[in-house]
C-alpha cells in the first residue's frame, strides 16, 4: 500500500525534498506544499529530478500555495498534478499512511 509524502520546505533551503525523493517507493504519492511548491515549476534547478520522480510516483502540488507565491500552475513540470485542498484530502484517503517530511 502506498504512502503519501508531504514536503513543505524549499529544496533550495533544506534537504527534505531530496530526502523524500531518496526514500519514497514506486507507487507512492508526493505532495508539495507551502515553500516546497517552487520545486514543481519547470525551468528550476530541480526540474530534472522531479521529472524523473514523476515516472514512478504520483506527484502533486497544492494550488493555493502556488497562487500565494505568484507561481503559474500552467508552468508545473509535466507529470505533476495541481490539486486543491479537497485533492489533498483525496490523496490522504487513497494512501495507507502519510509521511510529513518537515
Amino acid at each position: 500500500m502506498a504512502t503519501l509524502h508531504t514536503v513543505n520546505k524549499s529544496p533550495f533551503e533544506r534537504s527534505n525534498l531530496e530526502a523524500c525523493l531518496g526514500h519514497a517507493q514506486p507507487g507512492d504519492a508526493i505532495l508539495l506544499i507551502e515553500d516546497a511548491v517552487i520545486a514543481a515549476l519547470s525551468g528550476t534547478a530541480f526540474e530534472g529530478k522531479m521529472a524523473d520522480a514523476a515516472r514512478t510516483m504520483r506527484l502533486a502540488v497544492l494550488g493555493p500555495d502556488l497562487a500565494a507565491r505568484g507561481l503559474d500552475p500552467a508552468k508545473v513540470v509535466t507529470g505533476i498534478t495541481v490539486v486543491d485542498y479537497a485533492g489533498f484530502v483525496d490523496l490522504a484517503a487513497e494512501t495507507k499512511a502519510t509521511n510529513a517530511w518537515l
Partner: protein
Amino acid sequence: MDDMESGVVKKFMFVNRKAPHGTVYALEVLEMVLISAAFDQDVHLAFLDDGVLQIKKGQTPAGIGVKNFSPTYRALEGYDIEKLYVEAESLAERGLTEDDLLVPVEVLSRAEMGRLMAGMDVVLTA
C-alpha cells in the same frame, strides 16, 4: 543607536534569503526595513536564494489565509528605499527572470553581490 542619533549615516544591508508566506521572516524584515527608513540611513535590500520569491509578481495568498504584503515592496520607493539588488544566479536556479519581479531592481552576479555586501557597515540576513 548612538551613531544614528549623532547623525552618522551608515550603510545598512538587509539580506532576504527566505521564501515568503511559509515562514514569517520576509514580513518581519520588511517591517524592519520600513522602520529603518525613519533613521535616515543608507539602506540597501538584497534578495538572494529563495528571497527572490518575495518580490515575485502575482502573489495571491488569500487562498492560504495569509495577508498579501507583496504590494508593500512597491511602497519602498516612497520611503526613499530604492537600492534593491537581486542575485542573477538565484533567479536562474528558480526559472525566473527580472520580468517576474514586481519592483525595479538591479540584478547582480553572486560575485558582485558579495563585493557589495563587503562594503556595508551593517548586514542583517534572514
